[in-house]
């Protein structure tokens, strides 16, 4: 009896909260402009991509998203361009801007939803849930969250087997002659730590900084990660520059190239990307039975380092 009352209470509560949802309680926003790659990725993963009427230039996965009308770079979106798409919702990452442009958009009466700054690995599920609610497809969101749980479990499984943490360096590019390297407090640092590695640059600086030759030599990373064609393992220009020539990573041929949006996008594929990174950092660890990589990696554009 008591149990029944509890169920009755909770179900009526649920009914109440669903009635009190002010936004799009019936079927959610229909014409959405998205500014931020991970949001686009999530909407595609929910199978609701036909609601997207415009994307920003960071929305590069899935490739189909790049055919949608472009509203500019996430931090430099264009007011009139967005209004011309007749959206009924602007869904944006925390860094959507500039602020004054965003304010102008809101002044014209366009509903906007800008995520607060939680673009991190732990926040993926929360983001999915929020977007699913805005699109009124809660069950799809729930399904996607459960789908990601497999990746989370696999990661725990892999990390249980390891006891040493390799020294890792994440190199953004070599274009300026000096490698731009990830320090502490950014997405690359976060995924390295999550995958059971130590970011050697983290103790020296924050953000992304150019790295001097001798500093790089003294860091002596065991593994170097860089962005590029997925899974390629050839000795790239990275192995040629004096910064890394003498490092363990180059000696043992452990320069890993991973697609940037897959690993750092903080979208629904990133949890799997971290599992994959963990297996690359700890080649002896095994994946749980029955787990395999399911999400696609985007086809990268030819990036010359």
């Amino acid at each position, binding site marked *: 009896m008591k149990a029944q009352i509890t169920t009755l209470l909770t179900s009526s509560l649920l009914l109440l909260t669903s009635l009190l949802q002010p936004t799009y309680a019936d079927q959610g926003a229909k014409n959405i402009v998205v500014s931020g790659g991970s949001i686009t990725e999530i909407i595609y993963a929910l199978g609701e991509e036909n609601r997207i009427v415009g994307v920003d230039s960071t929305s590069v996965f899935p490739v189909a998203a790049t055919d949608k009308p*472009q509203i500019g770079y996430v931090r*430099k979106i*264009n007011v*009139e361009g967005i209004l011309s798409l007749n959206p009924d919702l602007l869904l944006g990452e925390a860094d959507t801007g500039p602020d004054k442009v965003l304010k102008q958009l809101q002044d*014209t009466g366009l509903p906007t939803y800008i995520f607060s700054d939680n673009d991190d690995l732990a926040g993926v599920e929360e983001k999915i849930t929020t977007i699913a609610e805005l699109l009124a497809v809660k069950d799809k969101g729930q399904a996607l969250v459960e789908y990601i749980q497999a990746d989370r479990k696999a990661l725990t499984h892999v990390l249980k087997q390891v006891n040493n943490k390799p020294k890792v360096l994440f190199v953004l590019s070599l274009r300026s002659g000096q490698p731009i390297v990830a320090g502490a407090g*950014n997405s690359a640092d976060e995924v390295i730590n999550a995958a059971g590695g130590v970011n050697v640059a983290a103790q020296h600086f924050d953000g992304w900084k150019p790295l001097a030759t001798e500093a790089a030599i003294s860091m002596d990373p065991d593994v170097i990660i860089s962005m590029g064609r997925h899974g390629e393992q050839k000795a790239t220009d990275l192995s040629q520059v004096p910064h890394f020539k003498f490092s363990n990573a180059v000696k043992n041929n452990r320069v890993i190239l991973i697609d940037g949006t897959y690993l750092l996008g903080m979208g629904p594929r990133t949890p799997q990307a971290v599992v994959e990174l963990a297996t690359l950092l700890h080649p002896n660890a095994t994946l749980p039975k029955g787990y395999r990589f399911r999400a696609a990696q985007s086809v990268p554009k030819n990036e010359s380092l």
Partner: protein
Amino acid sequence: MLALEQSLIPAEVARKWMLLGLIIGCIVVSFIGLTSGGVSISYSRLMDILFAGQSSNLEHAVIWQIRLPRLVLAIVVGAGLGACGAAMQAIFRNPLADPGLIGISSGAALGAISTIVLGSTLLSGFADYYGIYAVPIGAFLGCLGVCSLIYRLSSQGNRFTIVSLLLAGIAVNAIVGAVIGILTLISSDQQLRDLTFWSMGSLAGNSFTTIIPSLCLMLACCFGFSRLAQPLNLYLLGEQQARHLGVDVVRLKKKVFAYTALCTGAAVALTGIIGFVGFIVPHIVRLLIGPDHRYLLPASMLGGAILLCLADLLARTLILPSELPIGLITSALGGPFFLIMLVKTYRIKEL
């Protein structure tokens, strides 16, 4: 280059017609700018919105909150930059001078970038207090600060020579450049992106409330410049000659310096750095109608307004629904046009 009888339109009457033509051109460009853009609004609808008042909410908001402030800003900034360029070229007696010489661009960049990079730490009180106005105010203060430093260094007592101004300008610009480099180095990703975009220039996102103070300042400076036409003409003869003809040369130079600093500072504060307008517009106008400042100054203002309106129109519409940086367009439009004019002038000289 700055001598008389080397223009394409030497006759006085023709110059007056040319001014009229520029005014008409400015009006035409304004209307084209108001009717075209991402949201399509026909010419008749525009008239309704502007003069009859009522219309659908979105169209009304697009015109009154987005396009009109942007257009007014483009006109006034263009006019200001054109006038400052013309005056600078006169004072330096060199057609290659531009307002950057007296530290305006670097000073504004220093102010804006300091606000962006240190806004969350060292200057957090300032950035929080002024909100979205913090960067424009920072840019303006930085501009005035660097300009007054250059002014102090180059003026001793009642001497204010062009050589000392040039040298002080070069030295201070170099130092400021180094400081900006240091700030860039200590900036985070997000700040780095912000400052990159700031230095590319843009007219986007301004409402009437944000632009009115700057507009008043720029218009006042333009008015000030227009009263300096006659003394500037005499100044072109040479400093000694101008002095004998009763021009207070030092005061004239100081006035031009002050107006340029205030006017360009106010412009750059709102729009970021838009290069090339202050250099190319007076240059082209001079090739057309010669260096008589009674015509050169107003024509430079109108020309600058037209160039910036056109450039902004293209920036807003070329790659809809996104937007191009405006500095890119001003150079792409101005450069080839300038070259054509130059070639033509040389041909005339050879005949």
